[in-house]
């Protein structure tokens, strides 16, 4: 990239199973006000573009960015809604700044999972003719993927349970996480089965919350903060829709998205070049599968990776030191929270879950069941 884009501000709500005290507009305003306050920026003087991320069906509002127009500064100005995971909002915000059309963009993701039914919402993401009537939702589809992945790559229940143990323990040090604790592998494996092989503790919990980022051009960023976090690479890709058209033990879209992002960022050996990863494990097995897709290890080796402690918070390459999605992050907000956590790590602002001196961080998010659409963002301190 000839010119660069930086993240200059980060704000997150405390995540919670239910926020009955606010509507989604007021919840969004919490993080918008905080991000503007922290950076000393104002909407009228500094912000010239806004991107929000949520979905009408989650919000129960047709054209649901109507609900955040007032608080995001959309009145008589530009705002666009990314109807995908929040990571793709960062991707598109960066493209907007690189285009020269915008200088400083406010990025917001918000969702209140508590106000409706996750299973019904996610069932409607299946095509209405062929698969929806089977009653699939993201959890049952993920169970198919988990079973296929475990079978094809000889991944064990215990290896997947280790992801839960690691992430919920990491979350103990994350002030915004709500699902946390010290558990043993045995306790995870004793949790009730929801859709075999997935157990209750393998599934990210329903959560309400919002995240805001402020992103700026290089020139603007340097005026805002002495410690901008640079977007070094970005990539997205779509896989096939129908599960029967994919080998669920692989994630080709993630491999393609990562290849694009790494090429841009000049990453040639991901396991060595990357210092910390925040990825979207909506289900625990996905952390292992996505690590293979991100090229951190060869296909089928992620089980041994977690066995070795390589991805522990004090390991060679910490993965989800924040506690990840298992610690409680809303759908849609998920990917923006990944990017926010990666940026906090690079700034050294991750508080209790800070990893040692990272220089390059990768954030990954996905939309659709079994990770059909994938987005990879590479961030760096320089």
């Amino acid at each position, binding site marked *: 990239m000839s010119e660069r884009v930086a993240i200059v501000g980060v704000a997150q709500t405390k995540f919670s199973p239910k926020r009955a005290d606010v509507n989604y507009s007021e919840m969004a305003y919490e993080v918008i006000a905080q991000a503007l306050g922290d950076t000393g920026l104002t909407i009228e003087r500094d912000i010239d573009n806004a991107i929000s991320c949520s979905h009408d069906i989650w919000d129960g509002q*047709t054209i*649901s960015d109507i609900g955040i127009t007032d608080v995001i500064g959309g009145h008589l100005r530009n705002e666009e809604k990314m109807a995908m995971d929040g990571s793709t909002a960062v991707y598109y915000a960066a493209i907007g700044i690189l285009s020269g059309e915008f200088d400083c963009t406010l990025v917001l993701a918000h969702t209140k999972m508590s106000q409706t039914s996750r299973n019904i919402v996610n069932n409607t993401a299946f095509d209405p003719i062929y698969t929806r009537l089977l009653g699939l939702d993201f959890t049952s589809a993920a169970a198919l993927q988990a079973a296929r992945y475990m079978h094809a790559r000889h991944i064990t229940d215990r290896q997947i349970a280790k992801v839960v143990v690691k992430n919920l323990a990491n979350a103990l040090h994350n002030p915004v996480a709500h699902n946390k604790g010290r558990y043993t592998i045995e306790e995870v494996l004793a949790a009730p089965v929801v859709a075999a092989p997935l157990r209750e503790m393998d599934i990210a919990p329903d959560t309400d919350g919002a995240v805001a980022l402020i992103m700026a051009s290089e020139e603007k960023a340097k005026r805002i903060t002495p410690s901008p976090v640079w977007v070094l690479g970005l*990539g*997205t890709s*779509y896989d096939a829709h129908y599960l029967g058209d994919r080998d669920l033990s692989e994630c080709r879209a993630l491999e393609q998205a990562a290849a694009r992002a790494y090429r841009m960022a000049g990453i040639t050996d991901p396991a060595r070049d990357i210092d910390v990863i925040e990825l979207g494990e909506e289900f625990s097995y996905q952390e292992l599968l996505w690590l293979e897709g991100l090229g951190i290890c060869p296909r089928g080796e992620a089980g041994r990776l977690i066995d070795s402690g390589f991805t522990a918070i004090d390991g060679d390459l910490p993965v989800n030191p924040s506690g990840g999605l298992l610690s409680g992050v809303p759908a849609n907000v998920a990917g923006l929270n990944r990017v926010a956590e990666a940026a906090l790590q690079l700034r050294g602002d991750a508080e209790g879950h800070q990893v040692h001196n990272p220089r390059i961080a990768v954030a990954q998010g996905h*939309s*659709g069941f079994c990770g059909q*659409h994938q987005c990879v963002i590479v961030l760096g301190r320089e």
Partner: protein
Amino acid sequence: MKRNVAIIGGGQTYHAARRHDVNQVEMVNEAVRAALEDARMTIDEIDTVLVGNMEFFEGTHMTDCWLVDGTGAYGKPGLKITTGGTVGATIVCAGAHHVASGLFDTVLCIGFEKQEEGDTGAILSGVAHPLYGRSMAGAAVGYFAMMGTSYMAAWGATEIHSAMVAVKARQNARKNKYAHLKLDITVEDALNSRMLAYPIRMLDMCPASNGACAMILADEKTAKDRCKNPVWIRAMDTAHNEQFELDWRDVTTTKPIFSRTSAARVYKQLGVNKPADYFDVFEIYEPATWAEMVWYEDLELCGPGEGFKLIEEKRTEIDGPIPVNPSGGVLSTNCIGASAMLRVWEAALQIRGDAGEHQVPKEVRRALTTAYGGTNWTVLTALSRSLDD
């Protein structure tokens, strides 16, 4: 923008009320194939695919994921953006940003709606806040009906002016082979059509259409190498409007509102003093007749309160001095997620001289398009035949 962006191809479906012969994937694919054929490209030459529609109007969450086989996005980078009725134009803006960023040379932009597969009226009433104003169930009809009563009370226009807009749209549509409502109607026909919500009659309102539009954008080098007649995107501007203040129906308001604010910014950017002279053709988003007359005023094609005189004097007819919606506009075809993109594509066809029977009978070098959606949101897009225009 850091790089110039051109429209190097596009295509649309034959828009219709019933398309039981295709599912959503297949319908979108018709427009994609038409666009690729128009640009003489294959899907392999497309760097990224961007999709927009009205979220959940067809009852499917994350449609971009289902539609990958039809859009050609499989294995490619891409994304979905939604901004309501403006989304087709927003996707063009997003496409232009992608090209201008230098990361992509060719972008496929898609807007679509298969309205027959959902309950559009109920979903549009859901635009209102869930706890405030939703139970009126007025949908878009009720909103534009209030604009109509306000307009007549304020400026002395009558239902006859509305009927004139209705007739112009459908007579123009008869010249557009892709249009949905190709009706050989008179002012009397419009005035005698069924009352939906006073003063909006059946012929004063847009139809519910099924259809898709696709456009291919490219950087200057690719455009000049690959395309005989690229159309250049010269300015884009978006203005949303706050949630609860639907100022457009109080036509006497003097507050800064989305339409006038956005037009002023585009005119300033391009140095436009007399928009009616500067642009050779307009394609505007008019879900109802009254909106067309208000657009005339807000785009400064005439003074405040004079929009109805432009239609009375036939100045905005296809062969008039200020042709507006030679395609037949949204009043003739409204596949919502495609409608705002159709405005841009139809304007591009006029500049290329490829609009066929609805080509305006004068040289077209510059065109302006509008979009409409949400709680009074718009996207304006200005196009030109060359970078010198």
